[in-house]
């Protein structure tokens, strides 16, 4: 009487995956497509699809004398660790995937690493937590710069040129918020300023007036937005300006300028200094943005180019290794790539000092000032410093 669901399910899944004329390389996308992190997850999935399309149109990925059609399989992890584990199981054991783009969140990446590392599956994650990269996790890479990399150079530049002294900040009470709070406090102290006011709040909170009131009363001259989802950052700016705050607003990490301007409006965001991993004027970045705009109608999230480069770095590593199956070789080749011309500019790996392994992409990034809702590049930066 009970429908043997498990039998029905496994037969359905096993039937797929018949061999086409060319071989197929499946790229897994373990991303957040619903809830707060949806904007970032969507950007990463689209980046993988664009990279795959480009390779397929050029006749397929040429590795070891064989041509591969690249297929992207995407599942939603709902920004939750348990769901991410189930999706990882499905990708690794059912879809037999050896390369995964994602996950977005820090908790999900920590949860799936026992599976991906043991099965030697190469993972390109966005997870901000410093614990994502370490010596005993050889198969995990991070193509996007995080607070740990960008905060120090940018904050040094901001303190030097904008004369920021006392900074106040609001952080969500989740793994990303707690991680970024630590990084920023250290960075501001080293730069000669101070981050005396730190407030943590429930992730889906919408009313920040009480917290802002307390912060403004402490006489801060800048508000730091890093660590908040785009919509939340927008509301903080909106409500701070509504409370009559005229001081500086900075966001030294997590690209979300377009979303912040949408929520807070042009006037409130005028003169805001933001981190941006992309310089729209750079030809390679502009080319990717045009490709993205042509294919998807909603606005492109700032992390998308990083994962477009991540996918291309993977393809390059496979070409050099001459194999798609032996991820041990592909990993070794991937680590050796440097001076790669990606959408974000000249790319190489870094992170030995910070994480014990060079699996953190060192891409150029910029400090921009928001003028009339648009980003105007003010400084070009690398891990060493900003000019």
């Amino acid at each position: 009487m009970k429908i043997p669901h498990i039998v029905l399910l496994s037969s359905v899944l096993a039937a797929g995956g018949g061999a086409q004329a060319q071989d197929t390389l499946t790229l897994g996308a373990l991303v957040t497509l619903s809830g707060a992190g949806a904007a970032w997850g969507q950007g990463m999935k689209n980046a993988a699809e664009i990279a795959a399309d480009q390779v397929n149109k050029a006749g397929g990925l040429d590795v070891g004398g064989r041509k591969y059609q690249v297929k992207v399989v995407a599942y939603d992890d709902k920004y939750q660790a348990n769901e991410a584990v189930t999706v990882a199981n499905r990708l690794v054991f059912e879809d037999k995937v050896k390369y995964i783009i994602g996950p977005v969140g820090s908790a999900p990446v920590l949860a799936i690493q026992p599976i991906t590392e043991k099965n030697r599956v190469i993972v390109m994650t966005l997870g901000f937590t410093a614990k994502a990269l370490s010596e005993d996790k050889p198969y995990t890479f991070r193509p996007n710069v995080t607070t740990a990399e960008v905060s120090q150079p940018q904050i040094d530049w901001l303190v030097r040129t904008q004369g920021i002294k006392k900074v106040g900040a609001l952080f969500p009470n989740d793994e990303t918020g707690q991680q970024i709070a630590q990084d920023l406090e250290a960075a501001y102290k080293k730069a000669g300023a101070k981050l005396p006011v730190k407030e943590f709040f429930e992730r889906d909170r919408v009313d920040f007036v009480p917290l802002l009131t307390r912060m403004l009363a402490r006489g801060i001259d800048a508000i730091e937005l890093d660590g908040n989802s785009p919509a939340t950052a927008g509301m903080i700016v909106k409500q701070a300006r509504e409370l009559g705050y005229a001081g500086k607003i900075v966001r030294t990490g997590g690209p979300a300028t377009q979303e912040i301007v949408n929520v807070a409006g042009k006037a409130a965001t005028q003169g805001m200094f933001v981190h941006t991993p992309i310089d729209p004027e750079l030809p390679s970045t502009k080319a990717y943005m045009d490709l993205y705009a042509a294919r998807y109608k909603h606005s492109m999230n700032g992390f998308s180019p990083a994962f477009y480069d991540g996918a291309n770095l993977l393809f390059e590593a496979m070409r050099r290794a001459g194999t798609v199956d032996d991820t041990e070789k592909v990993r070794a080749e991937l680590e050796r790539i440097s001076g790669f011309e990606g959408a974000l500019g000249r790319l190489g790996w870094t992170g030995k000092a910070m994480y014990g392994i060079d699996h953190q992409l060192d891409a150029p990034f910029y400090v921009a000032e928001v003028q009339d809702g648009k980003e105007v590049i003010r400084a070009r930066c690398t891990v060493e410093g900003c000019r």
Partner: protein
Amino acid sequence: MDWTFLATQATVNGLIVGLLYLLMAVGFTLVFGVMRMVNFAHGEFYMLGAFGAYFLVSGAQLPFMAAVAITFAGALAGGALLEWGVLKPFRRDELNGMIATIGLAMILQNLALMFFGPDPLSMPPVAEGVTRLGKAVVPTARLYVVVFACAVLALLYGFLRFSRPGRALRAVVEDMEIAAIQGIRSRLYYPLGFGLGAGLAAVAGALMAPLFSVSPFVGGAPLLKAFIVVILGGLGSIPGAAVAAMLLGLVESYASLLLAGSTADMLIFAIVMAMLVLRPKGLLGRGEA
């Protein structure tokens, strides 16, 4: 740290937020009063109200007040239809009725997610700038919303006290059996009660859309606040909800002034649990334990 400024500012914030919570909760407590049903879909009607205001103002370029009125009417009709169509079998079954509204909430939120997408949208603010109330600083946009909220609550009070259907509804809230004996046909007042509850939630959503962003996920927080206000005030008691909403706004405002943000949230849940155990009827409610 200028404590007097902080105290006045916290009080003003607390009262404003308290009023917003009242607007969120009044529909919820009405539905429980009329149908003795905990409406888990209340937050989703708030969300749909926010989208209604967004599309009518940004899309159809209607004036804000017209948008709010149309959103209310739409939600009233929609709510009544949903009660009649989906919730009718559960009218006298508190527990299954509550579970049914959980199902309804999932359907509404995900339909919105399908049509409107996950990204938060932003409405043009109702008003710019800041007004000073003595020492305290209040964003003008919030003052407008507070004024509208008071207007809505006054209208509701008038409806319940003076109009015939309103008085009948209050009778039903008072005592179902007696109301039925007096010939008040429950067939009519269940959909009306639920529809009014949904309409009030939608109005709250519409009024607060310009203050906060609009997305399919905005329903969670208001449902939580409505829960807390109604438990403290007493299930089914509108005056109780009013007192409790103000208290919650002030306690939250002061707590977040003195304690770290999340400790304040924990404090409030602890108070709610204590209240439910020590005084399940709530401050002014007469729900039985």
